[in-house]
């Protein structure tokens, strides 16, 4: 085999007193998909930043195409054919796909006029190369998330990228789109591009990677070919301990119906005729493709985009939900999908975030009571084992999983009857994921009615007592969580209910 595309030898990197990387070695061969795995804070991002030249290592060497690189800067990394694609595509939304790609092409010298025709043609070729069925003249804002990702990959290739870093590229994709992306990855592999693939979803790593390197606490603990390792072993390597049962079982039988929806709809959100019940102690999973209306339904129940048809009953009484304040008064909590924008206020402290939805209860007469606030924050830091330096630390100093726990703590403080969780474990590492799953089960066991939206099929299957599948703005099937299989859920989500078992119209 020829020289590796990229070779890192015993890289170390420290930030002040914190050693983020402790002698990490890593090899990427041409035509290889090398997965990088590790819990949040294991050093993946730092390693990526070293490879893209954003961070300079304190010691260790970097070789690219067998050549020792003295000093890697973002500019020289770019020249050497290193490109990174992140969760959120960094494209110009108002420019067309072709223009976005053309911007990445080698700039013509001096004041020469840009040959747009030639660049468009090049862009079209690149889009074809990544198998994207996109009109190059479409504005990027009108493209779906996976299409944008393809445009970004095309742009990286246009820059002559031989080393492609993909950081959680599938976080916002549906199963189908993920498969399309994998097709593209396989093509790129055949063309000799080396891909560093980062994902929290183990299934994907087994589906697409050739080798996997596990990082833990800044050290690379193992590198294995994908054929000789299995999931439990990988998880063990990542967390350094056994993760017992991945999905905790239901502890109690569901009780009374708490929330009951009958033909609920909202014209603005294009959701219509949603009918289902959620019982106390039940986890009701909402499955479906992105755009099926799951988040829209959650927003309706939380009063952000109020319903305009149908009836909602809470404990048998018909209720109106016109605003989040009303939803809170009725005992409905919502942990939104976009944690950083909606779930928490990053620049404010853990304590301030935890009490944000219970101002009236904790602070009677609107006067802040710092003692009571600290007490409440400490209680949830303890109960949810939130890892934070102090209740006064800002939420943006916490890892993703801990931020999510703060978002959860805020709603638990309201003492809700119904809790809606929208992608509760997105972008959360394996360890914290298991903790959050256990937490959800415990909450249900305490009599909460939980509605859980997730695009992670194994999660939906493993956590839900019943699964409502949404398609085109309504629930098309309600399946039993224990007996349903992944194929049935997927089929219902795609609208192919040829045999999907418990078709229910209620």
């Amino acid at each position: 085999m020829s020289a590796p595309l990229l070779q890192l030898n015993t890289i170390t990197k420290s930030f002040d007193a914190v050693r983020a990387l402790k002698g990490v070695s890593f090899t990427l061969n041409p035509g290889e998909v090398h997965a990088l795995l590790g819990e949040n804070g294991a050093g993946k991002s730092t390693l990526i930043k070293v490879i893209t030249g954003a961070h300079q290592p304190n010691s260790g060497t970097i070789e690219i195409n067998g050549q020792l690189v003295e000093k890697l800067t973002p500019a020289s990394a770019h020249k050497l054919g290193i490109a990174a694609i992140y969760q959120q595509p960094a494209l110009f939304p108002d420019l067309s796909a072709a223009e976005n790609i053309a911007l990445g092409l080698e700039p013509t010298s001096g004041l020469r006029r840009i040959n747009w025709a030639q660049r468009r043609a090049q862009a079209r070729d690149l889009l074809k190369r990544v198998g994207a069925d996109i009109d190059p003249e479409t504005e990027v804002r009108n493209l779906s998330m996976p299409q944008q990702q393809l445009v970004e990959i095309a742009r990286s290739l246009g820059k002559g990228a031989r080393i492609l870093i993909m950081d959680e590229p599938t976080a916002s994709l549906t199963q189908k789109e993920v498969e399309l992306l994998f097709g593209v990855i396989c093509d790129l592999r055949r063309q000799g591009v080396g891909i560093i693939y980062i994902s929290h979803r183990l299934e994907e790593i087994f589906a697409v990677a050739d080798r996997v390197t596990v990082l833990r606490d800044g050290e690379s603990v193992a590198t294995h070919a994908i054929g000789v390792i299995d999931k439990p072993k990988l998880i063990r390597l990542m967390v350094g301990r056994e993760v017992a049962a991945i999905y905790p079982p239901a502890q109690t039988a569901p009780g009374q119906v708490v929330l009951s929806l009958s033909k609920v709809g909202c014209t603005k959100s294009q959701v219509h005729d949603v009918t289902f019940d959620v019982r106390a102690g039940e986890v009701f999973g909402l499955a479906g493709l992105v755009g099926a209306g799951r988040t829209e339904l959650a927003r309706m129940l939380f009063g952000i985009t109020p319903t305009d048809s149908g009836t909602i009953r809470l404990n048998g009484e018909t209720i109106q939900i016109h605003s989040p304040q009303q939803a809170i008064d009725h005992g409905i909590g919502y942990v939104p999908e976009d944690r950083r924008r909606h779930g928490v206020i990053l620049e404010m402290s853990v304590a301030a975030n935890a009490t944000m939805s219970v101002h009236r209860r904790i602070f009677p007469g609107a006067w802040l009571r710092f003692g009571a606030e600290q007490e409440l924050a400490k209680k949830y830091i303890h109960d949810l084992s939130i890892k934070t330096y102090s209740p006064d630390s800002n939420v943006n100093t916490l890892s993703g999983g801990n931020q999510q726990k703060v978002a959860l703590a805020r709603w638990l403080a309201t003492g809700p009857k119904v809790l809606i969780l929208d992608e509760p474990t997105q972008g959360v590492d394996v360890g914290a994921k298991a903790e959050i799953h256990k937490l959800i089960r415990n909450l249900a066991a305490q009599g909460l009615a939980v509605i859980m939206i997730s695009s992670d099929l194994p999660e939906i299957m493993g956590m839900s007592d019943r699964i409502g599948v949404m398609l085109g703005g309504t629930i098309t099937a309600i399946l039993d969580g224990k007996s349903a299989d992944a194929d049935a859920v997927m089929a219902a989500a795609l609208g192919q209910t040829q045999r999907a078992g418990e078709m229910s119209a209620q």
Partner: protein
Amino acid sequence: MKNFVRSNLAKHEAILLVVVIAEWFYFNSVGAHFGSLDNTFDIVRHSVEIGLLALVMTPIILTGGIDLSVGSLLGLCAILFGKLWRDAGLSPATAGICTVGIGAVAGGLNATLITWLRLPPLIVTLGTYSLFRGLAEAITRGVDTFTGFPASFLFLGQERFLGMPAQAPIFVCVAIVVWLLVHRTTFGRSFRAIGFSPDGARYAGLPVDRRIAMVYVLAGIVSALAAIIYTARLGQAKADAGTGYELYAITAVVLGGTSIFGGIGTVHGTLLGVAAIAVLSNGLVHARQPREVAGMLTGLLLILALSSSVIPKIFARLRARRQTRRHDKAPNSKIQAPEKLQSSNTD
């Protein structure tokens, strides 16, 4: 990080306090009467109106908004106060109460346009900035002035009460109320939350629109109050009263360490900002400098104060770069400084 922001803010306030004290000692040494009690009272009298506007501008900027209309509203309220007293025959007290009501309505107009029509505060208040001033000019046809107020009213702006300028206790009361509102109530907490992330505040169930409305109505009320004090101080009300005051107020707030992007800032910082500007402009008169210098120096002060947290980092970065050049073979330390700069810029 919060502690970092807090301590950073506290450092900013400490620097500002030093600036105010330094100004004081400098002008005291060059101006013969600068340090006298009379002159001190003069400074207070002249800064109360802008101070009031700056106080209520603080919560607005904390929510990530801005109110450009407060100066114009001061003018409009001064005119309407005069009109109510002279033409409608109301007593100054009754006229004052009505004026404050009008201020609340005007603030309510800003609030309504911002929260119902979802227009950006900058645009809305730019509109009402012209609207209020235009109304004031239309009512007076540009020439009418109101004078001859009774001595009992002028007392408020020109005499002493409890040994200090009569308007000072009002200012202190408003300052205490605003301080408590911002720092000790859930309202202040909500303002910050909205300033950091309006969506995040909404998803937390905070009544975002009501809180935003509150700060603009408060600004309207206090602008009216400032208009009354202004009229009492000068003994006359004209349509051009308070021209440009909105910018002085915003300058004082930003100088006091409040982030123009919202979320970060304190009321005591604003008070220090007001003091720094007031002492400077008064002191320059005593130092026999032309008026224009005051504006220039205020601008310089603002830029210096705001860059004070960045300057040491720039030096550190330069030093690091020089070191890199010297030890070209040691790539370890070079990137540290810019990195720190980046990370702390995000706070």
